[in-house]
């Protein structure tokens, strides 16, 4: 009686592409022409962990037990090849020991690179992309601020006579300035809230589009509480500043000149 074929897991994408399901027998080969083959049985289908660096790649992959992979792929003429692996993942009982463990291991085995998975280096691809996004958002905010100022100028001009009347009847410049600042702040916060709502609405649509397009579970956009707070924190002083800047000349000009048509 033949020993049952060893089990493998295949990715959802491979299962769909090759019309495979659990229980099917498959032949894997290491060469395109079919050299060096082995037969396996599909014991499960898994969803590949989304990899942002490879989100466009079709995840046609399979997972084998290490001895099976070595037996299939190792170079028989190189005795060391069966002993070589690319990477070892380590889960610690206490994650707080991560950096100490990494440092100890690196000093003990200098020919390997030991790196905590949670490390985030300044030169990491995603750190660079994060800075890129921040730069773009700064540019966008600068452009929007120019427009905001222009609109606030128009609003201030529309209320020229109203401001003149208020100053004539004795309302202090300080009170007027405060009301302008509060109004600007309120407009900015409402605007930021609207922007956050728009971002939340588009988050789902954008993620759905790209997940469908690239057949991945990767999340492309996530609006977090920190981002929402940051939006409000940036918007509020801009609104206050724009309101005050736009109304400044109205509040400083000779009051009678505000009635001149």
């Amino acid at each position: 009686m033949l020993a049952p074929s060893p089990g493998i897991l295949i990715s959802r994408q491979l299962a769909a592409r090759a019309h495979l399901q659990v229980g099917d027998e498959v032949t894997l080969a290491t060469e395109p022409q079919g050299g060096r083959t082995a037969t396996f049985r599909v014991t499960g289908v898994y969803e590949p962990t989304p990899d942002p660096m490879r989100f466009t790649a079709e995840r046609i992959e399979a997972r084998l037990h290490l001895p099976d992979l070595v037996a299939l792929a190792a170079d028989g003429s190189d005795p060391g090849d069966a002993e070589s692996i690319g990477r070892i993942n380590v889960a610690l009982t206490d994650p707080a020991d991560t950096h100490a463990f990494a440092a100890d291991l690196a000093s003990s085995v200098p020919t390997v690179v030991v790196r905590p998975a949670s490390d985030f280096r300044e030169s990491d691809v995603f750190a660079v992309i994060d800075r890129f996004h921040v730069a773009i958002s700064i540019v966008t905010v600068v452009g929007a601020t120019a427009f905001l100022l222009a609109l606030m100028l128009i609003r201030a001009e529309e209320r020229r006579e109203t401001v003149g009347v208020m100053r004539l009847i004795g309302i202090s410049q300080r009170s007027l300035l405060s009301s302008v600042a509060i109004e600007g702040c309120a407009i900015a916060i409402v605007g930021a809230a609207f922007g956050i709502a728009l971002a939340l609405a588009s988050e789902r649509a954008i993620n759905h589009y790209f997940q469908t397009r690239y057949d991945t579970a990767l999340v492309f956009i996530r609006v977090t509480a920190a981002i929402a707070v940051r939006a409000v924190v940036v918007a509020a002083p801009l609104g206050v500043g724009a309101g005050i800047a736009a109304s400044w000349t109205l509040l400083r000009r000779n009051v009678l000149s505000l009635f001149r048509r």
Partner: protein
Amino acid sequence: MTPLALAWRATRQYRARAVLAVVGVAVIGALLFDMLLLSRGLLVSFGRLLSAEGFDIRIVATQGFARIGIPESAALVEAVRRMPGVADTAAIAVEAGDAGVGAAHGHVTLIGRSRASASPWRIVRGADLVDSAPGAGCEAVVDGRFPSQFHADVGGSVRVLGLPGGASALPPIDCRIVGVADFGFSASGERTVAMTMDALQRALGTTHGADAQVILIASAAGADPNAIVRAVGRLRPDVRAYSNAEVVEQFNRNGFAYFRQISTVLSTLTTVFAFLLVATLLTVSVNQRLGEIAALRAVGIARHRIAAMLFWESALLVGGGALAAVPLGAALAVGLDRLLRQMPGLPDGLHFFVFERRALVVHLLVFGVTAAASAAYPAWLAARLPIAETLRREVVG
């Protein structure tokens, strides 16, 4: 007075808001321009790096570009050399290594090159490798930062040790530095030492001919690279031959998707943003001048002239901003390019933002359409204005 002249006067009349609107459009436009540069920048830059090597076809062992030896590469090189339309070939092997000069040493990338008329690097100082007899002294060409890091320049000597698999008990070989070159695909933190294939084999301690990992082919003037690609495919179905265009297309499909996507998304967003902002500004401006506009209509100025005046106002604001956006965008692109090039492992010569005339044309077209679209609603407002009601409201208000 033409609608353009009226629009110009109106813009000057409300100078402060006009300047702010132009600044706003310029900043947003700079971002749009940069996204247009980014949309194909990497591809164009990558293509230029490939072309700069002087070879327009490359042969590798498998699909994709993993560094795997091409079986019987020497024989393949000779066969390819005899093909019609082939001007030059070079077999290349790349290995990790260690270089030392005096007390200084560090990791380097070793490149071995077989006999060829040209090398896939550009000599900036000194001379290129000379194809010498096997066993002759080792000559090396190093990258531009090597001399300052290792304190060894043309005429100096460097110890080279091949590290296949990461460790070696072999003695190093001494090479004489004959030239300093620009290696297009070397990363800024990467040091490169190029030598003949024979010298590399000695450094690696191999006694038989090592297989090249890439065979570069330069087609002759007037020859069709695709024909050579097909010929290689017929000769050796077990290897993969790609023209430079095909290499670029592969990277376009796999490697550059993120930047293409973000460029598309941001280009769309900035265009919509600019449209919304200018349309809002113009609409509010028109609402502020309703009495003026109603009076113009009352004295007989035709609707289409008032609409034309508003379209020209939009054109002046958006057009002025769009033109200012080009130099601003160019400056911004330099900064963003520098930022993105902090990514690890990027070739020194690779850029994300590359100027193409097409980007400028698209930029101007987009803003032309934006100017027209932004003025559409305010112009419609002005044209449809109920004159009597507006005049009455202006008096009462």
